């Protein structure tokens, strides 16, 4: 009877250690999955923000205040930041800007948008 109890205790101990070890490995995998998902979600959000800002710039012929107005209404969690820098490359009738999207001060995405400047006599 005593030897049977020892056997059960030994088995329990070994299984607890096995369970703990594999649980730790699985926990790391779950954490890695969560981190990857979060990165993807941040990237997707940045793409949508940059795309929307770019389309507003193009539609308003480079009106940055219109973009800022849109962003102030649509960036709700405050972790994203969008910088719009107008580029002057001296090409006539063309406006150009670089849109940079940051997440918690890390740059996620950057794209260049061009639009047609309107002439006064058009």
């Amino acid at each position, binding site marked *: 009877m005593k030897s*049977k109890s020892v*056997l*059960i205790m030994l*088995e*329990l101990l070994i*299984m*607890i250690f*096995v*369970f703990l070890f*594999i*649980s730790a*490995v*699985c926990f790391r*995998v*779950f954490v*890695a*999955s*969560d981190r*990857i*998902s979060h*990165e*993807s*979600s941040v*990237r*997707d959000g*940045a*793409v949508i923000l*940059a*795309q929307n800002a*770019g389309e507003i710039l193009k539609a308003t012929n480079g009106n940055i205040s219109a973009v800022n107005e849109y962003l102030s209404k649509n960036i709700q969690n405050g972790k994203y930041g969008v910088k719009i820098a107008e580029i002057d490359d001296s*090409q*006539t*009738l*063309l406006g*150009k800007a670089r849109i940079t999207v940051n997440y918690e001060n890390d740059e996620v*995405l950057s*794209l*260049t*948008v*061009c*639009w*047609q*400047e309107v*002439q006064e*006599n*058009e």
Partner: protein
Amino acid sequence: MNNKKAVAVVVGAPSLLVIFSVLCLLIFSIISLNTANAGKRLSILSAQSTLSYYQADARANELLAMIRSGNIPDGVTERDGIYSFSCEISDVLDLSVEVSVSENGGYKILKWQSIRSNSWKADDSIDVWDGES
């Protein structure tokens, strides 16, 4: 009289329970990692295609601005006052543009469209039923 009740403890039951739990944990963790990686690949592809589109769009705008200024760049064809050109988005996509430009620099976009750069070819490698017996 001996009233002691014997507690039936089966040797191996904890092992079975742990093996089952560990298998479940392993399967769920692998599935979750796979899903996350698939999402990451999709997200990167989506970001790359958006960036490629905006690069082509910027190039098309540059060409349009040059046409409006009176300089016709290489690769632009003109017929009946309509200028046509295309900018590469990716290996399989082009941004096809058609614009009419007036003398004062005004312009009207007739076409600004992503199109396939190579012609679509049906996969006829499998002999499927064509609806006729």
